[in-house]
């Protein structure tokens, strides 16, 4: 299944898999899509998987007393099994389909937190977390009179390991941390965090939204308790996400959403919960997106992690090199070799929003804003940054177009 069908591929060959990359923008420019950390484009195989589901065997799942139902259930459960292997989980029942990373983390904050957090307990997050891995914890610690604590970052944008040591303790019940910062590009040391968690008996949740398309994911080494990601950032359809949870924990937790499918028996005043994974999958699942996610995972595995890494680090290094040559441009976070394919930056006297609009005139899609990391931007003492983020289909030429577009923007803004 994961046999390398493309032993060698380049951005040029891979681009043909993504129909949108061949289209022209409304302004007639070719698209230079460098907003991959927000969401990635979809290869034809994924688009077709969704279409085929609707055109040939669509019906509701888990009710297969008819042939379509059997087929669609087989496809959905096949996708679950692929995801299980992809994240290295022991059992398919540990894979919960959700609507996205945000929903996955909310599920844990509520289903685990409401049951297992008590007054005075501490939840440890980092200063670089996405709002999705902050706000749900803020809410549940408030409800429980527990406390949210932040692992600070160093000047280079890495987790401060010494501070980590002093933050963990017997009150630490949960460490919730991103595998890769969506702003700094920092790749966090999950091994160290996993050890920290076991040293104090805390649970470890990793938000793998940013890393999942760029490096291997494994929930057993180092061992994590929960792992969340979204399909739309790994070349999959929109509307589907995943929560991995260790069986014992999922079994001990309360359900989050309630309704059909997640129950065993419903009586007038009480209900009993179904088995895993149904217990956490209330209502009709996003069936076609879930099936399409399985195809996306096949696609990524066929590319191969080493190849993906090589292509993306080449892009990131080039971007580092050409961007740092631009006067007044400052990159935040660690050096090119120690980060994912994300580069956030500011340009003196050029507001990120103006910059993004100006490079868009050249067909270059980047992002500007706080990227759902306001506390991080407070630490950086910045209101907003511009961000370019790369995927397997980006080319070195596109990196150069970005740099030229930024130079052009500076000229338009009378900065050179």
């Amino acid at each position, binding site marked *: 299944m994961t046999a390398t069908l493309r032993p060698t591929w380049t951005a040029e060959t891979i681009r043909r898999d993504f129909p949108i990359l061949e289209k022209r923008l409304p302004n007639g420019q070719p698209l230079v899509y460098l907003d991959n950390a927000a969401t990635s484009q979809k290869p034809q195989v994924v688009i077709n998987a969704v279409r085929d589901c609707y055109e040939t065997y669509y019906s*509701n*799942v*888990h*009710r*297969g*007393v008819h*042939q379509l*139902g*059997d*087929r669609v*259930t*087989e496809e959905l*459960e096949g996708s679950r099994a692929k995801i299980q292997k992809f994240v290295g989980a022991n059992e398919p*029942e540990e894979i919960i389909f959700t609507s996205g990373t945000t929903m996955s983390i909310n599920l844990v904050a509520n289903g685990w937190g409401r049951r297992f957090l008590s007054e005075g307990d501490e939840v440890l997050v980092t200063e670089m977390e996405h709002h999705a891995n902050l706000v749900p914890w803020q809410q549940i610690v408030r409800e429980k009179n527990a406390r949210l604590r932040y692992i600070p970052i160093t000047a280079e944008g890495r987790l401060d390991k010494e501070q980590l040591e002093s933050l963990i303790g017997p009150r630490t019940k949960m460490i919730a941390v991103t595998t890769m910062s969506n702003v700094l590009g920092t790749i966090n040391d999950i091994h160290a965090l996993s050890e920290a968690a076991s040293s104090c008996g805390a649970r470890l949740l990793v938000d793998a939204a940013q890393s999942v398309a760029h490096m291997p994911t494994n929930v057993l080494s180092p061992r994590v308790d929960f792992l969340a990601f979204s399909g739309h950032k790994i070349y999959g359809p929109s509307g589907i996400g995943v929560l991995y949870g260790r069986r014992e924990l999922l079994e001990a937790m309360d359900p989050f959403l309630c309704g*059909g*499918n*997640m*129950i*065993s*028996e419903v009586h007038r005043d009480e209900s009993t919960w*179904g*088995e*895993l*994974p*149904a217990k956490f999958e209330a*209502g*009709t699942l996003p069936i076609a997106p879930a099936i399409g996610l399985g195809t996306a995972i096949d696609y990524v595995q066929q590319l191969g992690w080493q190849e993906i890494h090589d292509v993306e680090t080449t892009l990131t290094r080039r971007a580092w090199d050409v961007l740092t040559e631009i006067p007044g441009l400052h990159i935040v976070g660690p050096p090119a070799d120690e980060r994912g394919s994300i580069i956030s930056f500011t340009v003196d006297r050029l507001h990120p929003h103006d910059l993004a609009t100006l490079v868009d005139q050249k067909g270059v899609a980047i992002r500007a804003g706080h990227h759902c990391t306001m506390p991080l931007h407070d630490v950086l003492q910045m209101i907003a940054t511009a961000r370019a983020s790369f995927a397997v289909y980006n080319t070195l030429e596109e990196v150069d177009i970005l740099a030229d577009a930024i130079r052009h923007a500076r000229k338009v803004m009378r900065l050179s």
Partner: protein
Amino acid sequence: MSTQLDDLYNDHILDHFECPYHKGAIDHPSCSRTEKNPLCGDVVTLQLQINPEGKVENAYFDGKGCAISQAAASILCEHVEGKSVDELEKFQARDMLDLLKVPLTASRQKCGLLGFRLLKTLIYEQHPEENEHSVSPSDTLNTPVSNTDNE
């Protein structure tokens, strides 16, 4: 994918459904257990009489539900009598499905395996100490599809 369903309700199944083997209750069973498939409401009770040598002398079932679940329970009772607990420990879901002699789609396997699940739990409980470090029955009993209800 495609399964020829026409053979599903053949004489073998329907005969067992209409004239089940050992449907009823044993007065003093060695062990007994009831399980329900909440999805379709199938209920099966399985009772075993195991002699001191560890042989199943008598197997009775009771219950109600679809033809598949009831016929399968009947076929199961017929099969286990005379077998030893050790033999039955090796009896797998696949073997049970083979005994039915009809192709069951994933969605109907839960019906066909309801009695079998009971058997495995009862057998497992015969040697709880021995089995302590081995897999629990719930691990081995997962049918391919988690056949929960939704619409």
